[in-house]
Structure formats: C-alpha cells, structure tokens
C-alpha cells in the first residue's frame, strides 16, 4: 500500500506543474521533435519549452540511463531535476552511478510502469498514431503489446524499483501516481495533491508479469538454441560488421576507450602471416566474435536488457536478446540484479570467502 493519486489530466500536466510550481528546476523527459511522430529525450528547464512532452512515447531513442549519466557525469545537479524513466533505464543509471559515471543527488525519479517499446526502426518508418491505440489497449488489458521488441516482451522487470514516484498504467484506464519516498511525498505536498491509500500496481500488472515471465522463458530458450555452440556463434555473429555500435549505444558500456578498439587489436603484419599459415583462411577484421563474448564478460553482469543495442545494430543481430538472456544467467550466478539497489555491490568487485568451489580444482 502507498500514497497514490489518479491523474486523469495526464502525466504531461503533472510534469509541467512540477516545473511551474518550482518543485524542480528542470525535467528530463521524452519530447516530440515533430508533431506526434518522433521524439527524443530533452532537458527542459523551468520556463522552458514544455510543448509536446511525451513521457509515454513507446520508443527508446536513447537509454535515459545514458542520458542521465551524460548530464551528471561531471557532478550532481545543483537544483532538483525530475526525470521520467523506464525501469531498465533507471537500473542502467543506478549501475552507472556505481561505476562513478553519474550522480544521483537532486534527481526526482519518476518511474514508469513500462509496457515495453517498439523497435526504433518503427519510429523512423511508420506513424505512431497508427498503432498507439493498440498499445494502450493491450496494456489496459494487462497483455503483452504485440510487436514490441522481443526483449521487452520477455522483460519481467517492468515495474519500477527505487523510484520516488511510480506511474502505473498497466490495467488502468486512468494513470495513477504512487509516491513512495519522502522526496516524492514532499513533491505531492507542494503540489497540493490529495493523496489516498492504494496499491502501487493494478492487479492486471501481476497478470502481465506472469505473461512476460513465460515469454521470457520461451525467448531465452530460442535464442540460446540459436547461438548454441561454435556454429551458432558463427551463424549469429557471422554478419557482424564490427562497427561496435551496440557497445556505443549501450548505457553500461561506459568506457572512453573500448578495449576492443585499442591498439591491442592492431596486429603486426607477422601475426596475420602466422595465422594464415595456421588457418589457411582468416576472416578480417578479426575478433568479431571475441568482441561480443568479451564485451559480455565485461558488462553482462550489469546488462539491464534495455534493448538499445539491438535497436542500433545495422545488420539486425539480436544482440540484446543474447545479452539479456545469457546475461541473466550470469547475473543469477551471483544473485545480482543490476540496478536493483545502489548499495548492492558489482559482482566482480566483491567476493565471498567461500563460494564457487565448483570451479576450483
């Protein structure tokens, strides 16, 4: 149970009132670039342009975790800023804060109960108006929205954790806000909202969770089957063009100089000769699969499964499905849920004295 309020006038109005009442001095939220068709994250300051806020725009043009990291990399905001984030985005940001890539102070986190997003290409090629109705219809019913990205279909972490204010939409005709922290309650008070006691999530949210969990299992199995073994790796990553776009849009891949782009991987001529002699034929540039597997070992424990990588892959490799569903194996190994809590230590920077005896010999 929590303090909740329904917002029939919509989330946009609530956000604007936060700005207008001076509760926050800025907003980070999706905003229409063009009338209802394309949007981008924007930092909207008090007194700024609040036209066309689109907090529920069903696409992810950038991972807000990455956006927040960029904003607060150099230090915390001097004044409160409200940010509207999807659960995976917020979890990514929490991971980044752990990695010293951002500051949590002065952020009022408004977490969305996420219905999932469509592949980004759909935003480019189609008109949102054509399918947005179906999107909300499905959510209202607590069903998986058809056509959303596979990672979203199999996402069972769509209910925000750690947010100050939770926006609940699944199974509701009118969206509802739940104020979960002092910061959130303080904001509600300043806005003069009349809060009542209520459940954070509608009962149908649980139904959706079940459905998603089931789907997750299916997809995980499928994708694991696809990448299985050497041949699987070759088949899936064979067409990779080595652009590393997946790593570049990944919120977790925060390195300035990616190890795989360093001079380490510029080989001397002789090493090509040697390899040629050994193998007869050799794919160039080399290390395509190494890059993916290596990246996985570097960041899969923190992978939040946001799906940006897959959206950005120009050759359509199901990167995020692989990372999410194989990454979750690795996370389970350490009992770690990335972004669940700021206090939870990153798996590879901590240890227990007695563990994993099975790998010792």
């Amino acid at each position, binding site marked *: 149970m929590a303090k909740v309020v329904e917002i029939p006038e919509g989330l946009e109005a609530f956000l604007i009132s936060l700005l207008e009442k001076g509760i926050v001095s800025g907003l980070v939220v999706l905003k229409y670039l063009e009338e209802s068709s394309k949007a981008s994250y924007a930092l909207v300051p008090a007194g700024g342009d609040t036209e066309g806020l689109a907090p529920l725009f069903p696409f992810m043009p950038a991972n807000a975790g990455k956006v927040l990291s960029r904003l607060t990399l150099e230090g915390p905001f001097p004044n409160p800023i409200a940010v509207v984030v999807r659960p995976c985005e917020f979890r990514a940001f929490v991971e980044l804060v752990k990695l010293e890539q951002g500051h949590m102070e002065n952020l009022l986190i408004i977490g969305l109960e996420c219905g999932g997003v469509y592949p980004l290409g759909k935003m480019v090629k189609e008109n949102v108006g054509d399918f947005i109705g179906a999107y909300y219809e499905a959510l209202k019913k607590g069903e998986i929205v058809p056509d959303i990205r596979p990672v979203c279909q199999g996402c069972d972490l769509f209910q925000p954790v750690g947010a100050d204010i939770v926006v609940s939409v699944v199974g509701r005709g009118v969206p509802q806000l739940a104020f979960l922290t002092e910061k959130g309650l303080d904001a509600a008070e300043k806005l003069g909202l009349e809060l009542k006691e209520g459940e954070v999530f509608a009962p149908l949210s649980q139904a959706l969770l079940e459905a998603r969990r089931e789907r997750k299992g299916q997809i995980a199995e499928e994708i694991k089957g696809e990448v299985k073994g050497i041949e*699987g*790796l070759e088949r899936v990553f064979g067409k990779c063009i080595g652009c590393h776009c997946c790593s570049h849009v990944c919120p977790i891949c925060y390195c300035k100089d990616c190890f795989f782009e360093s001079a380490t991987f510029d080989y001397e001529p002789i090493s090509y000769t040697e390899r040629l002699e050994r193998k007869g*034929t050799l794919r160039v540039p080399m290390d395509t699969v190494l890059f993916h597997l290596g990246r996985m070992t570097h960041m899969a424990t923190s992978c939040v499964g946001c799906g940006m990588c897959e959206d950005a892959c120009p050759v359509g490799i199901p990167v995020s499905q692989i990372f999410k569903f194989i990454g979750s194996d690795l996370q389970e190994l*350490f009992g770690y849920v990335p972004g669940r809590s700021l206090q939870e230590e990153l798996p590879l920077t901590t240890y227990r004295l007695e563990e*994993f005896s099975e790998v010792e010999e």
Partner: protein
Amino acid sequence: MKVEEERMKNERETEGVFEPKIVGFLCYWCSYTAADLAGVSRMKYPPNLRVMRVMCSSRVDPVFIIKALLDGADGVLVAGCHPGDCHYQKGNYYARRKIALTKRLLESLGLEPERVRLSWIAASEGPRFAEVAKEFTERIRQLGPNPAKGALFL
C-alpha cells in the same frame, strides 16, 4: 571450412595422438614459482602447457581466456595462490568470480566450459603443479581438439 576440417584430420592421423595446446596463466607469486620449482626439481609434466606469467590471477581478464579459446588453444588453465594466500590479499577471490563467470558464459553459449580450469597452486607445490598440468592435458586430450580452431568466422 572443409579445408580446415581436413587439416585437423590430417593432424590427428599423422601424429596418431592429439596433442592439445594449453595456455596457462600463472600468478607470479605462487603458481609460477611452483612451475619453477617443478622445473628445478626435474619433475616431468607434458610440454603442451604454454605458460604465461601474470602478476596475479585476478589479472586474467575473461577476454584473455576467450581470446585463447577462439584463437587456437584447446584449453586454458588459470592458476594462483590458494584463497587467503593472495599476495595482493584478495586478488584470487576476484579471479574465482571471473572464472565462474567465464565458465557460466561458455556453458550458456553451448560451448565447453570444461576447457577452462582454475587451480590453486602454492609456491611450494611444485609436484602439484606438475600433477595439474598432467591431469589437465589428459582431460583436454580426451575432449579432443577445440572446434573453434576450425571456425573460419570467429
């Protein structure tokens, strides 16, 4: 790919028995010293193990292991000080987690995690080092050549 398969077949046929290539990442303080000791004491262990010295077992980035496996190694051995004995106090605990991660990853990908082995070998354990080397080589020999060797598109 055909060519590669042939090549490997030839390898096996001409030599009769498969000689695996094994990369060993040994920590400087314990396991490498143990290898030294084994050498000094003229203990026999198979020549298949190609030793790479690292300052601490935790320096072994999983990428190194994967790189070795994708680029021709049939097995990878990581060896360091026993838990609690790490020269850097806790490096080997991290190493253990990394190996766990690597093995799980390989498993999830349907590859063979048993090609990776973590062993704790103290500086004085020269005989144990020889033993581990022998054992692991044998184990890999049983597993046969790493199929990644022949994969053109890796």
